[in-house]
């Protein structure tokens, strides 16, 4: 690969990003612009921004690589991403959120919950939960992007990290949510085109759709023994019921990521950026196509890479990548695709990382500024925009420090931890805020706290993937996890924490004082 050509492509890309960031900046005049993109975002921009934020580099490289090892069973995640993450999210959550958010004058997700339950405490705690747990997730994406720049341009990791952070910080801080969403739309489009092309060329190389799948099906006898033991039954088959991989795919990937998406604050806030339901209707169409291509195509390609590698080198994808799951997709791209595509794919990966990070920085900054600090010091009047800008800088610095300090093993779990905590703490409350009038302020608060506590407990003491590297369980009880019976140590924390927060929400609601009819009427004004 020619470093000069790649450098040139990246420079042009960054110039376009800078222009879009500047457009966001020049159109940002008020706190509403800064926090909610002025509430008049175009449906295409909204849908692409939602999709690009949702799909990070690790979703493409990481999950694509997992499909390379375990096969096409991962397509269930695509199905859930579209049905739950787009269709249900936009139409059943998005519409009501948009209208209620407007009725309640909410600028952020914690503010939405706080105003819905007339509780500053809920707003402050939600803001704090997001601000404390999200840097871990941001650090994963940040380090991923920096490692990528380090290897491509052969520069020092610290330099890559600083460079990458400053670029994103510049347009997030200056352009607010408008800057974030405009750049997201471009980045989403690059991701879409690259992944579309990738699948088409892959099928072409392997002799067509059916021939490619059949070749992969025929490789069933080549499954290594260790994978067979984990439940692998071939790359075009779902894992064996009740096997380790079956539990991982059903609870961790499908439930944790597939359902967890509904409670992501940085995605929820996007519902409040459009001015009417018409924009959401249009965004469903665009978002559905985007997620289908962005996730379904890469999982299929990941699995099919085995056919290519076996034909060319008599090795499986994971063997060719020397056991490193994260290298399967990059190795496949450089081996099988034309050179110009390698450049485009580099941009797609850079885009995937930047679009996710920019939204994370924005969400963390507004949680700290608007939701936490403004309510902790209620007597002081703050300039929301300025406070958010300063808070975003703080959030970025914390993410960078976490990225440097934490061991690699825990960093890799950052996404799952954040998704799990958000789902357990916020999903039942968010759903009830929209659809259950009987839910009370006290119940909402206790549901958030119990979901958070159950989630942290499961992460620290049950789910071996987190409890082992965290080491708290080892220090207290002398063993890596308290779960002794299969499959509890591999079941995702969401399976334990979500029922806890649902039960607390319902039980406490039934025994505490109802929300006043006037407030409910204000919340549900013009919501059918």
């Amino acid at each position: 690969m020619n470093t000069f050509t790649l450098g040139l492509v990246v420079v042009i890309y960054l110039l376009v990003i800078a222009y879009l960031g500047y457009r966001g900046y020049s159109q940002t005049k008020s706190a509403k612009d800064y926090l909610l993109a002025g509430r008049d975002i175009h449906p295409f921009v909204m849908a692409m921004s939602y999709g690009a934020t949702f799909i990070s580099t690790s979703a493409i490289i990481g999950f694509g690589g997992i499909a390379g090892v375990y096969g096409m069973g991962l397509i269930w995640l695509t199905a859930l991403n579209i049905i739950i993450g787009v269709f249900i999210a936009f139409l059943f959550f998005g519409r009501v959120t948009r209208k209620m958010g407007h009725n309640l004058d909410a600028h952020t997700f914690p503010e939405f919950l706080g105003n819905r339950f007339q509780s500053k405490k809920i707003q402050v705690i939600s803001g704090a939960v997001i601000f404390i747990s999200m840097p871990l997730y941001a650090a994963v994406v940040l380090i991923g992007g920096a490692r990528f720049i380090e290897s491509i341009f052969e520069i020092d990791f610290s330099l890559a990290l600083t460079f990458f952070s400053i670029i994103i910080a510049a347009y997030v801080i200056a352009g607010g949510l408008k800057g974030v969403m405009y750049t997201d739309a471009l980045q989403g489009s690059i991701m879409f085109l690259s992944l579309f092309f990738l699948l088409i060329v892959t099928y072409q190389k392997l002799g067509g759709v059916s021939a490619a799948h059949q070749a992969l099906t025929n490789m069933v006898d080549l499954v290594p023994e260790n994978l067979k033991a984990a439940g692998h039954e071939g790359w075009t088959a779902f894992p064996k019921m009740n096997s380790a991989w079956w539990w991982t795919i059903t609870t961790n990937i499908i439930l944790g990521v597939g359902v967890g998406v509904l409670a992501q604050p940085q995605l929820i806030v996007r519902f409040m950026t459009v001015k009417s339901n018409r924009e959401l209707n249009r965004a469903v169409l665009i978002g559905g196509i985007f997620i289908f291509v962005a996730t379904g195509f890469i999982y299929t390609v990941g699995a099919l890479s085995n056919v290519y590698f076996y034909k060319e080198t008599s090795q499986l994808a994971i063997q060719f990548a020397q056991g490193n799951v994260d290298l399967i997709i990059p190795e496949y791209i450089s081996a099988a695709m034309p050179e110009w595509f390698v450049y485009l794919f580099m941009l797609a990966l850079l885009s995937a990382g930047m679009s996710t990070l920019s939204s994370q920085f924005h969400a963390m900054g507004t949680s700290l500024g608007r939701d936490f600090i403004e309510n902790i010091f209620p007597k002081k009047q703050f300039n929301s925009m300025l406070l958010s800008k300063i808070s975003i800088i703080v959030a970025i610095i914390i993410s960078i420090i976490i990225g440097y300090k934490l061991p690699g093993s825990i960093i890799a779990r950052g996404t799952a931890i954040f998704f799990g905590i958000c789902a357990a703490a916020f999903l039942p409350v968010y759903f009830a805020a929209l659809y259950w009038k009987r839910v009370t302020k006290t119940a909402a608060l206790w549901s958030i706290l119990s979901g958070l506590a159950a989630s942290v407990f499961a992460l620290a003491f049950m789910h071996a993937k987190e409890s082992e590297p965290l080491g708290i369980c080892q220090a207290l009880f002398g063993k890596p996890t308290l779960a002794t019976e299969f499959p509890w140590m591999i079941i995702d924390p969401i399976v334990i924490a979500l029922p806890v927060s649902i039960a607390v929400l319902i039980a406490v609601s039934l025994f505490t004082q109802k929300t006043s009819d006037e407030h409910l009427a204000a919340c549900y004004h013009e919501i059918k």
Partner: protein
Amino acid sequence: MLGINDPGVILGYLLAVVGLIACVVYGALNWNKGMETSTEEIQRDLDWEEKDEHLKEEI
């Protein structure tokens, strides 16, 4: 079907495609619907901006 024999994976692909079709059909049928931004909503938006301006001036 198309070289895949496992019902679990076929069902996964079918669901993904059904989801995609649902999104496309719904979006296309309702492309121009839902534009009912009420005058009240617009007024609230204006109030919001005014409050914002007012706050900025105070600071």
